[in-house]
C-alpha cells in the first residue's frame, strides 16, 4: 500500500512535480542559453556596403487584377531575385536583379573591379522586361546555352519566359521565340542542367500558379492552392531539352518531370552518385520531391524520405553540411512562434547507403522564421560551411498581424480557400514581417548557432533571394540579398585572415562551357568537401560560378577531383592555395 494514507498529503506530494513541470515548460520556452559552441568568435564579419558599391536597386512588387485585391499582398509577395554571372567575361562576377512591377526596370550591375558597380541593364537590353501582356519578372538564371563562351540568361516571369543570347559580352538579343520557349508560365524558379550529358544546357522551369491564369485578367478567383499540405493544383513544371542550334524542345511529359505541386525552387546535382544530374524540388503547400535521372532517358520520382513531412518549401540550397563529401539539401520553411512550426529541413544525403535523405534540422537551424532564400558558403574560411538564410514575408503595419486570419483559413476545407475571394482581407497587415536574417555557423556536435547579429547581418527587410559571390576575388564570400519591395543589400564578407582558401573556375569543353553541374571534391588532411556549380539554387538566385573552399589552417590541398557533367573525372594534385585556379576540362 502506498503512503501516506491521507489523500490531501498524497496530492500535495504529486503537486510538487506538477508545479515543477509547469516551471520546466516556462524555462524551456526560453530555449538554450546562447553561445552554444563559440558564437562569440564566428571568425568573420559582414558589412553592409551596398551604397558604397553603387548598388541602389529597389524591388517593386507587382499589382494584379482587383478581383484579388483582398489578398494581393500575399499573391504579390514574390519577385525579388538576384543572380551572379560574369556576363562580359572580364573575370569578375556581375549581378542581375529582377523587378516585378509594370514599368519598373531590372538592373544589371557590371563589376568594375574596384569594389563598385555600374548599372548597365538598359544598354544591355535586359532592363525593360516588365510589361503588360508580357508579365513581370520573378527571377533569372545564367548559362551559356550555345557554348559560345558568353553567359546567356533566361528570365522567368509571371508571364512569358524570356531567353536572351549574349551577343558580344555587352548586348543581349531576345531569342525566346526562335528557341521555342515563348510559353506563359507563372514561374518562380528555373535551373540550367545538362540532364542528358550531351554538352548542351537544358532548362527546367518551375511553375507556381497554373499556366492558364493571367493574374491581370482573371476569369476566376479560384486560383489558390486546394490544400495547405498536399496541393497538386499548381502550375506544371516544364523541362526543355536543348537541341542545339538555339532550339529547345518541351520534353516534360517524355521525361516525367511535370510536377503540378506549387514548386518554388529547384536545384540539381548528382545526389545518388550515378553520374547523372537529378532534380530536387522545394514545393509550397506540399512535400519536397526528388526526381532521379535515369541516365538521361527519363526521371523517376522517388520518395527518399521526403514524403513524410509536408511543409511549405521555399528554397533549396545544396552544400556539404558536415564535410562528408556529399551534397546535402537545406530547405527553408515557415515558422511563426505560437502559430506554426513547420521547421526548416537539413537533409543529409544518404542516398548511397539507404536511398534516403535524413532530416537532422534541430534547434536554431530549424526555425528561421518565415524563411526564404538560403545558401551554404564558407564565410570564415575555416573549412566548414556556414548558412545564410533570408527571411520575413510581408512587412507592413507593425500593429496589424495577419497570422490570426491565416490560422482561420488554414484549418478550413480546401475548396474554401482555393477561392481567393473567400480569404480575409489583408489590408495593411504584416505577416511574419520585420524578421532579421539568420547566419548559422556550424559548431559540429554543438549544433548550428545563429550569429547574424554578431557578424553584422542586421537588416529587417523581407529577404527573398540570396546569392554568394567573391565579388572582389579576394578569397571572401560576399552575400547579396534581394529583398521584396525593398532595397537590395550587399554584405561584404571579412573573414579572419589566418585561414587559407582556394577557389576554382571551371571551363567545360565536352561538358557545357559554363561547367554547370560540375562537382568538385577537395581533399586535404582530414578535410573533405564537395561543391557543385549551380545553374540556379536557393530561391530565385544563382551563385558565383567559381567554387570557393575555405581551408582553415591547412597550407596545402592534397588533391581535387572534378566530376564533369560529361562524365569525365579529372584529378588535380597539390594546386596552389589562396588564389583562383582555372581548370579546363580535358578534351578526351
Amino acid at each position, binding site marked *: 500500500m502506498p503512503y501516506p494514507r491521507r489523500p490531501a498529503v498524497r496530492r500535495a506530494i504529486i503537486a510538487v512535480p506538477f508545479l515543477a513541470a509547469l516551471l520546466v*515548460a516556462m524555462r*524551456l520556452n526560453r530555449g538554450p542559453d546562447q553561445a552554444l559552441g563559440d558564437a562569440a568568435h564566428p571568425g568573420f564579419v559582414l558589412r553592409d556596403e551596398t551604397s558604397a558599391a553603387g548598388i541602389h536597386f529597389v524591388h517593386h512588387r507587382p499589382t494584379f487584377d482587383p478581383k484579388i485585391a483582398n489578398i494581393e499582398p500575399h499573391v504579390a509577395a514574390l519577385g525579388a531575385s538576384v543572380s551572379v554571372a560574369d556576363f562580359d567575361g572580364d573575370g569578375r562576377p556581375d549581378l542581375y536583379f529582377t523587378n516585378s512591377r509594370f514599368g519598373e526596370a531590372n538592373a544589371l550591375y557590371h563589376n568594375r573591379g574596384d569594389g563598385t558597380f555600374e548599372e548597365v541593364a538598359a544598354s544591355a537590353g535586359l532592363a525593360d522586361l516588365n510589361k503588360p501582356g508580357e508579365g513581370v519578372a520573378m527571377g533569372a538564371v545564367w548559362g551559356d546555352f550555345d557554348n559560345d563562351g558568353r553567359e546567356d540568361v533566361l528570365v522567368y516571369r509571371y508571364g512569358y519566359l524570356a531567353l536572351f543570347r549574349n551577343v558580344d559580352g555587352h548586348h543581349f538579343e531576345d531569342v525566346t521565340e526562335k528557341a521555342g520557349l515563348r510559353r506563359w508560365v507563372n514561374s518562380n524558379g528555373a535551373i540550367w542542367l545538362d540532364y542528358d550529358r550531351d554538352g548542351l544546357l537544358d532548362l527546367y522551369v518551375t511553375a507556381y500558379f497554373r499556366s492558364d491564369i493571367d493574374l491581370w485578367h482573371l476569369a476566376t478567383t479560384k486560383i489558390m492552392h486546394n*490544400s495547405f499540405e498536399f496541393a497538386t493544383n499548381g502550375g506544371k513544371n516544364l523541362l526543355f531539352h536543348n537541341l542545339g542550334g538555339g532550339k529547345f524542345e518541351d520534353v516534360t511529359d517524355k521525361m516525367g518531370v511535370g510536377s503540378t505541386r506549387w514548386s518554388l525552387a529547384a536545384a540539381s546535382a548528382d545526389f545518388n552518385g550515378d553520374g547523372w544530374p537529378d532534380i530536387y524540388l522545394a514545393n509550397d503547400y506540399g512535400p519536397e520531391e526528388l526526381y532521379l535521372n535515369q541516365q538521361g532517358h527519363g526521371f523517376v520520382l522517388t520518395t527518399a524520405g521526403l514524403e513524410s513531412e509536408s511543409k511549405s518549401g521555399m528554397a533549396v540550397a545544396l552544400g556539404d553540411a558536415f564535410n562528408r563529401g556529399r551534397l546535402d539539401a537545406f530547405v527553408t520553411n515557415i515558422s511563426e512562434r505560437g*502559430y506554426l512550426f513547420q521547421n526548416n529541413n537539413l537533409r543529409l544525403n544518404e542516398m548511397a547507403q539507404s536511398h534516403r535523405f535524413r532530416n537532422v534540422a534541430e534547434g536554431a537551424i530549424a526555425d528561421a522564421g518565415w524563411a526564404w532564400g538560403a545558401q551554404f558558403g564558407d564565410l570564415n574560411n575555416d573549412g566548414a560551411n556556414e548558412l545564410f538564410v533570408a527571411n520575413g514575408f510581408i512587412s507592413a503595419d507593425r500593429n496589424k498581424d495577419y497570422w490570426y486570419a491565416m*490560422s*482561420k483559413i488554414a*484549418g*478550413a476545407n480546401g475548396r*474554401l480557400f482555393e477561392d481567393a475571394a473567400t480569404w*480575409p482581407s489583408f489590408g495593411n497587415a504584416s505577416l511574419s514581417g520585420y524578421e532579421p536574417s539568420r547566419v548559422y555557423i556550424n559548431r559540429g556536435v554543438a549544433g548550428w548557432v545563429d550569429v547574424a547579429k554578431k557578424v553584422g547581418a542586421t537588416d529587417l527587410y523581407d529577404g527573398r533571394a540570396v546569392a554568394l559571390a567573391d565579388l572582389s576575388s579576394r578569397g571572401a564570400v560576399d552575400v547579396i540579398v534581394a529583398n521584396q519591395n525593398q532595397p537590395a543589400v550587399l554584405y561584404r564578407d571579412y573573414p579572419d585572415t589566418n585561414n587559407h582558401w582556394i577557389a576554382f573556375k571551371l571551363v567545360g569543353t565536352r561538358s557545357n562551357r559554363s561547367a554547370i553541374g560540375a562537382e568538385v571534391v577537395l581533399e586535404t588532411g582530414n578535410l573533405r568537401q564537395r561543391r557543385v556549380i549551380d545553374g540556379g539554387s536557393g530561391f530565385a538566385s544563382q551563385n558565383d560560378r567559381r567554387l570557393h573552399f575555405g581551408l582553415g589552417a591547412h597550407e596545402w590541398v592534397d588533391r581535387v577531383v572534378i566530376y564533369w557533367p560529361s562524365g569525365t573525372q579529372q584529378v588535380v594534385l597539390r594546386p596552389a592555395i589562396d588564389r583562383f585556379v582555372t581548370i579546363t576540362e580535358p578534351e578526351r
Partner: protein
Amino acid sequence: MSDAVRAESTDRNLVTRWWGRANTIDPRYLIAFLITLVLVAAQLRYHMLGSYDRLVVALGVCVATEALLSWFDRGKVINLLSAYISGISLTLLVKPQGGALWPFAVGGFLAISSKYVLRYRDNHLWNPTNFAVAALLLLAPDRVSVLSHQFGNDLTTNLVIWIFGLIIAARVGVLHITLTYVASFLLLNSVRALALGQPVLPEIAPITGPMYQLFVFFMITDPRTIVRGKRRQIVVAVVIAVMEALIRFASDKGWPLPTAFNVAPAFLALALVGPVAKWLDLHRRANFP
C-alpha cells in the same frame, strides 16, 4: 416472406444487434477506437506525426504517469485507457519547434498529473489534454504550437471522421453537446462576422479543421469533466461557444492577448469555462443532492 424481404430483415437485425452490442461496450473503448482511427488515418494518408518518437514519448509518459500516480494515490494501477487517449491526443495536437520531444513529455505529465492535483470533491476539473495543451501554449508559445491544418484540408477525411465521431458521440450519449457547440459556433461566428463587416465563410471555416474535430469529439464531450444533466450540458456548451466568440472578437480587435488565445480559442475557452462549470456542478450536487 420473399427472399428480398427476408434479406432486408436480416440486415436490419444485424445493425440492431451491432448497435445493441455497441451499447454494452465501455464508452472509453469507443473513444479510444475513434482517436486511434484518427491517428492511423492521419499518419497513413498525411504522414502527420512528423516522427514516431513523438508518439512513443507522449504515450509512454501518459501511461507511465497514470500507472505511477494511480498506484500512489489509490493503491492500485487503474485502467490506462484514459492515459492512452490523452497520449494520442497530445501526439496529434502538439506541434513543437524543430524536433523537440520535451513538449510531449512535459505535456503528457501535465495532462495526467492534473487529474490528481486539480481536483474538487474527488473529481478532476479539466479535461487532461485540454489542460496540457492550454498550459503549453500559454507557458511555451515560443516552442510549441498546435495542430492547425495537418489533415490535408480534405473533404473525404473530414467526412469519415465526422461520421464516426457522430456515431460514437451518439453511443456515448454526448451527441447533444457536440451538436450544440457546433450550432452555437456557426451562429455566433456568423453574427460576429456580420457585426464586424467581415465575410462569413472564413469565420466559420475553422470548424471544418482537424483541431475542431478533436475538440468536439474528445475534449468538450469528455464524460469525466462534463456537468451532469443534459440541459446543463447544453448550457455549458453554449457558454463555451460564447467564450470562444468573445476571444475571437478580442483577436479581431487586435487586443493584446497571449498568442495562445489567437491560435486555439476553442481550447482556451474550454480551459476557462469547463472547470468553473464542473466546480459549480459538483458544488451544487454536494449542497443540493
